[in-house]
């Protein structure tokens, strides 16, 4: 009888150890969509440098933000790197999303460029502005026009995706352009900046959004991912030459261009994320309300916007190595 008890205990122990091992190794990895934007590349760099445990996290490369959104809608990925306004739009369409990380905030990387004969924002009245049909474009437009005391009815809009902005500019079809860095040499030579995201700090935020209904099962993977992100961010902020050289081919830019774009972005550290990744923070609340107002004004959001479970700071590392 005693022998049987001991054998039973041993059997249970072996089962327990096997379960733990299975739990560690057999879990389906979190699939996260990433499109080529410098703010998100910390994750790609982590993957390249072997810092990401492939059993926990798998990055899915997409061509654009809209492809990442589509994959989220169709449930093909668990999360995606995107702008905060895209997160609000998707939530409005019924995709349950929660922001677990602020990647970066645009501080001049999103801008309104105008031809040399237009020297003030007010002179945009009656002119044609080229832009991408996105919430971000509308946000920049709304803020710029508001600063000039104009409305959307005062300007003509010409929608074109950002990859075609160079062509749009060269054809002379637009007088101004809402775009983001890096812009081509042609555009930068023949234009000057009238407005940029530096004037609306912490409004244009890039975030990591994850499906709210999968958060619990993805907790270990997300904690691991965020820890590695902050480790890589440290290198990025230190202007590490290796990191710059690895970033450049990922984005199809030169090292100088990467350095230039990096000066137009701020990268919130762990402390900033801990403070701002909840809707109770006054600054977050104010910026969020402002963004929601702009989006409502552009009919991108309904009148009732639910911000419950929008932000979750519980995945951030508690200690920073």
């Amino acid at each position, binding site marked *: 009888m005693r022998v049987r008890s*001991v054998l039973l205990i041993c059997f249970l122990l072996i089962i327990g150890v096997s379960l733990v091992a299975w739990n560690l190794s057999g879990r389906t990895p979190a699939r996260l969509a990433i499109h080529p934007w410098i703010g998100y590349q910390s994750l790609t760099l982590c993957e390249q440098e*072997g810092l990401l445990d492939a059993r926990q996290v798998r990055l899915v490369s997409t061509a654009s933000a809209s492809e990442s959104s589509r994959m989220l809608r169709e449930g093909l990925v668990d999360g995606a790197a995107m702008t905060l306004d895209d997160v609000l739009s998707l939530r409005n369409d019924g995709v349950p999303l929660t922001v677990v990380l602020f990647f970066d905030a645009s501080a001049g990387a999103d801008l309104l460029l105008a031809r040399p004969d237009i020297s003030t924002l007010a002179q945009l009245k009656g002119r044609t502005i080229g832009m991408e049909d996105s919430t971000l474009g509308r946000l920049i437009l709304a803020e710029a026009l508001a600063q000039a005391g104009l409305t959307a009815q005062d300007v003509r809009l010409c929608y074109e995706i950002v990859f075609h902005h160079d062509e749009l500019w060269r054809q002379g079809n637009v007088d101004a352009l809402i775009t983001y860095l890096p812009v081509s040499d042609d555009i930068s030579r023949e234009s000057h900046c009238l407005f940029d995201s530096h004037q609306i700090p912490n409004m244009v935020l890039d975030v990591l959004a994850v499906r709210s209904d999968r958060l619990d099962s993805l907790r270990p993977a997300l904690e691991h991912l965020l820890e590695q992100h902050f480790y890589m961010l440290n290198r990025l902020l230190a202007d590490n*030459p*290796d990191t710059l050289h690895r970033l450049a081919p990922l984005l199809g830019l030169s090292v100088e261009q990467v350095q230039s774009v990096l000066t137009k972005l701020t990268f919130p550290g762990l402390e900033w994320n801990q403070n701002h990744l909840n809707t109770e923070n006054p600054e977050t609340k104010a910026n969020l309300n402002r963004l929601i107002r702009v989006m409502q004004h552009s009919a991108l959001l309904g009148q009732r916007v639910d911000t419950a479970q929008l932000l979750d700071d519980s995945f951030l590392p508690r200690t920073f190595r």
Partner: protein
Amino acid sequence: MSTVVRLVGCACWLLLLGGLMLSQAEARELRIGVLVFQNKDVAAKEWQDLNVYLNHLRPDVLFRILPLGKDELKRAVQDGQIDFMLANPAVYIRYQRYHGLSSPLVTVMHCYDEKSLHGFGVSIFCRADRADIQCFADLREKRFAVPYHLSFGTAIVQHEMLLNDLPEVRPEHLVEVGFPQQNTIWAVLQGQADFGFARAGLLEQMAANGKLDLDQLRILNRQPFADYPFLVSSHLFPEWPLAALRHVSLDDQCWLTAALLQWRQADHCRRPFSLHGFRTPADYTVVEEVMRKLRFPPFDSTPDVRTSDLWTLYRSQILVLLVLSAAIFALGLYLYLSRLQLNRIRRELQSSNKKLEQLATVDGLTGVGNRRSFDEASKRLWASAQRNRTLLGLLMVDIDFFKAYNDALGHQQGDWCLQQVAQLLGRACKRPDDLIARYGGEEFAILLPQASLDDCRHIARHIQAQLAERAIPHPCSEVSPSVTLSIGCHSQLPGVDGQLDEFILTADRRLYVAKNKGRNRICWDEREEA
């Protein structure tokens, strides 16, 4: 008049010359030690423009840029012979720890083909004709040519090996070839080592100068740096820092920093790694991380590790280890307890066996040996007597008229009588080897090793005397009022062909003779009677 003018003129010249000499004598000297691995004359030429620029900018100070080898630089820093040091990040970090240098004041900038270079790395190579080394993983257990085992380049390569899940190169596989770095290339080409490294750009520079055919080498672990003009096999690290020694005043540090930041080399950067200028200091944390990871000096002592660090780093492994340890402990405890139980069972078994053996050889009523024990003992003692050529005696004892005794007094009394007789026999035969057994019914047998017929007769008489003295009443005996015994005695020296059965039969026959002749007597010869 002209003499006076001439004298005044001479005096003025003398004063001017004296003044100049005085100012020259008072001019302070600031020395910048630059670590060099190649020819010092070449290095001095490279730094000449900067030296002229600094002396021009500040005539009251004499600047001297001194190219120094590894050991010379070490001595110069130790003895305070220089004021500023420009060296690779690893040397800087080491000397900062050992000698208390300042924080980096500026970081040097290099350029190539009119383009600034961001950071530096190394090219790792083997001979192109080595079929056994096709990729980085093939470098396991290969000989590694290094200029010096603690050089930063060695650390960079070892770091890459760790990142590629390869073990560090063992000390016995390091082939030290000394500086300049070109030595590693020759060592690999001549087969003294399997692979080597050089600062990225050096191979291209040597190829451009016609000193090396790049087709002779295979570059391993190439990095995907589209915007870097050289073949690189490693991560890139920030360029060399310039730092001040402890004795240098803050004013001098600030002045030199400002001067260096404004200086740009007029040269058009055609040569790989041409000196271009200086920038604000880079972040050298990444270099320190690599040195810590590889335990390179000054991080070669065991780091202070907290238990919580171990838990954070190896949580799952520790958990598995704990579970396995608990399982092993439980099994060990189980084995120990099982052993205790087994010992107890063995003791009980031994005791039971002893009892069983006793039950098998002892007569339950009288406590003397039973027929089985007699059979075994008789064989043993017979064989022993045969072997030792000694006598063996046997008494066959029978209680006279015992059936009548039983019939008259009952079986209880009969048993008691048997017990009394057995006790008496036991007292009479005191030697350890003597064996008394109940041969059957009221008959006893006594084996007496080394006893002659006389000895047997003597013992038989003694038994009869003792019984007579005991005087157990026997109401039905025809020969005596008390219990009496008939005894057959026999003693024999067992020959080689002697038979045990015959021996016993003889004693038995004599017993019957004793009984037939009237009982209560001893018979030791069929023809005689005691």
